[in-house]
């Protein structure tokens, strides 16, 4: 098992919500190894955009040898991806990073919390969880995406910032409003959300894993661009920094500062 850089063919591309796209990619060698919460690096075809875009894996279809990524247009690179058609190819590298520790939730109650473009990895995570799953998805407004996929493997609770669907507020507001309970939290989303979830987990003495994000260059742990602050001196860096791409992107909430 090793990371693979390969040319992947686009099987399908769909617009799920404004600026949110879904790509199914043929990637047998990566799909065979990928785990929930891992990511791939996607390279632009425009050679002027030299760095790959790290994008989380939304679904893994090992039988078809395919991966699904759901991404938001954040700049010119992702806009390039969004303009591509089935049959066209993209270079990808993966699987990268460590996924969610699925053994930690076996037989337990788990919150899978996703905010915005942090929602997609929760689809495969819910599917593979041998646990009592509650997916709590936070959206900006009524432009809901991945609803059916998320509801397929557990209870789905939705929060929207504008209150148009589900609880008005964030994922933690949804937990409180619905009096939800769990033993473990897996979360992915913007930093303020992760910070609040970390505090909530601490307060409720829950085990909590956070999937972090940062600007990346190499994606494999060499360049030291995408570090986060760690509570203790990290084994590899020998300072209080951890590499999100290689040591993460999923970290135990108590081992990182955010």
């Amino acid at each position: 098992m090793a990371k693979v850089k390969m040319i992947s063919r686009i099987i399908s591309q769909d617009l799920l919500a404004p600026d949110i796209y879904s790509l199914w990619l043929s990637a047998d060698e990566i799909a065979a190894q990928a785990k929930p919460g891992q990511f791939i690096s996607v390279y632009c075809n425009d050679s002027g955009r030299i760095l790959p875009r790290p994008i989380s894996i939304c679904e893994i279809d090992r039988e078809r040898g395919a991966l699904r990524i759901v991404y938001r247009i954040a700049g010119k690179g992702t806009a390039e991806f969004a303009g591509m058609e089935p049959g066209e190819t993209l270079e990808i590298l993966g699987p990268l990073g460590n996924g969610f520790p699925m053994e930690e939730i076996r037989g337990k109650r788990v919150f899978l919390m996703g905010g915005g473009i942090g929602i997609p990895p929760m689809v495969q995570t819910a599917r593979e969880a041998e646990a009592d799953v509650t997916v709590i998805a936070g959206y900006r407004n009524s432009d809901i995406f991945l609803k059916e996929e998320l509801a397929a493997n557990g209870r789905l609770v939705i929060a929207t910032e504008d209150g148009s669907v589900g609880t008005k507020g964030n994922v933690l507001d949804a937990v409180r409003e619905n009096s939800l309970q769990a033993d473990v939290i897996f979360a992915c989303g913007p930093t303020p959300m992760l910070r609040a979830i970390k505090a909530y987990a601490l307060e409720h003495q829950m085990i909590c894993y956070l999937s972090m994000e940062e600007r990346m260059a190499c994606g494999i742990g060499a360049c030291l661009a995408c570090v986060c602050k760690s509570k203790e001196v990290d084994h590899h860096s020998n300072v209080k920094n951890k590499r999100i791409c290689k040591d993460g992107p999923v970290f135990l909430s108590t081992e990182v500062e955010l």
Partner: protein
Amino acid sequence: MNMKVNIAGVELKNPVMTASGTFGSGAEYSEFVDLNRLGAVVTKGVADVPWEGNPTPRIAEISSGMMNAIGLQNPGVEVFCKRDLPELAKYDTKVIVNVCGHSPKEYLTVVERLAEEPADMLEINISCPNVNANFLAFGQDPKHVEELTGQIKKIAKQPVIMKLTPNVTDIGEIARAAEAGGADAVSLINTLTGMKIDVNRRTFALANKTGGVSGPCVKPVAVRMVYQAAQAVKIPVIGMGGIQNAEDALEFILAGATAVSVGTANFMNPYTTVEVIEGIAEYMKKNKVEDIRELIGAVR
């Protein structure tokens, strides 16, 4: 067909090395390329004590390039010697340890510590733009360059490469200063100091405000400077700056570089180093070049 080159008595099996800071200590890239095939691995800069580096964001993409302000995060020379260097020494490639510091004393501490370690050469980074302004002035002032080179040469047990900054008016003058101080070779270019502003957030793209520009966009500047340095000194010049394929590497060699380093392109394609080596061999075969040394500085 000979691809071997010699730098200060150290024979490299081919002229392709890695640029410091883009290849870690090799471990991450060993999943993609056989390190035994490389001319040399140049490690991420190491200091006397661990350095935390700069806040994030540490990188930003620009057209045909990138900017970084990592700030020389490193685990310190003790951990490096105990953990990273022995791993790298297992490979049949030359190991060049990049040394960084804030002051002559810090450089000398690291150089001294490395004396008995399995390092074939030392590369002294007097040119990182991301640490502090006073420090950069070091590599920009020929007097300081000559003095520091002399101090390092006095205690170094391995050949010394001085890594030069392109952020100077006359690169020939700086290269001559390194040579006068006793350097065994010079390497260039380090990154060009730049700035990027995020207009949507109305802030600097990098937390450090400024960063080092690298990648394909800097190559013409780098080739020009390598040419000028090679004209200015007799010691070998190691060329780098935007190399992403064999043709790029050959430009540097023809301009006067004895060896070349692949840097940012490792992020674009982790197989780049080996592809460059293969591409140079193909070029030599096609053009009936028996010895790579025929190409070094062939364009005047």
